[in-house]
């Protein structure tokens, strides 16, 4: 497998970066996110979340009670600051 392939498109995190984080002890998707910024970009993990969960195997053989261990932060959709400004 070519490890230079991009997993998180928004933050440009490659498979190699993720494996390095896992070698350094990161086990869950949340930890990998903290170490590599994967899932923190503008799409907030919409594209890479399933890939990260595949890599960590943290949802195998489990009935999922919560959608993801990756926390999804508000605001749900990014907008430019200028669009929030009042009066102009």
């Amino acid at each position, binding site marked *: 497998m070519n490890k230079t392939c991009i997993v998180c498109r928004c933050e440009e995190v490659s498979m190699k970066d993720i494996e390095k984080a896992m070698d350094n002890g990161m086990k869950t998707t949340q930890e990998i996110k903290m170490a590599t910024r994967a899932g923190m970009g503008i799409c907030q993990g*919409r594209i890479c979340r399933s890939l990260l969960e595949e890599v960590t195997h943290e949802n195998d053989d489990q009935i999922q009670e919560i959608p993801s261990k990756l926390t999804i932060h508000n605001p749900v959709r990014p*907008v430019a600051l200028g669009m929030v400004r009042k009066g102009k």
Partner: protein
Amino acid sequence: MRLKKHPVLKIQDKQNIPFKFNDQIYHGKEGETIAVSLWSEGVKVLRKSERSKTSRGIYCGIGNCYDCRVHIKGRGLVRSCLTPVEPGIEVVSEREVKKNDL
């Protein structure tokens, strides 16, 4: 991306909508999104990525990934795969994109 012939559907003649992308005039058709109008005119690169400056354009096409994001002057950041073209809008790419970029 634009259909010219179809065995069943009647292809309607649609009005040209002039708009700008990086100071270059392009023409879209009524009802198209910015991403589709640009693709039909041969422009597939919509921005450069932050770190490695690689070319980005339409990826998911459904407004999920934000890879197609562009800025409209006076309006801000939009997803070009969802935003319809309007006459006279000035669209700008995130980071410099040259005309011949692949």
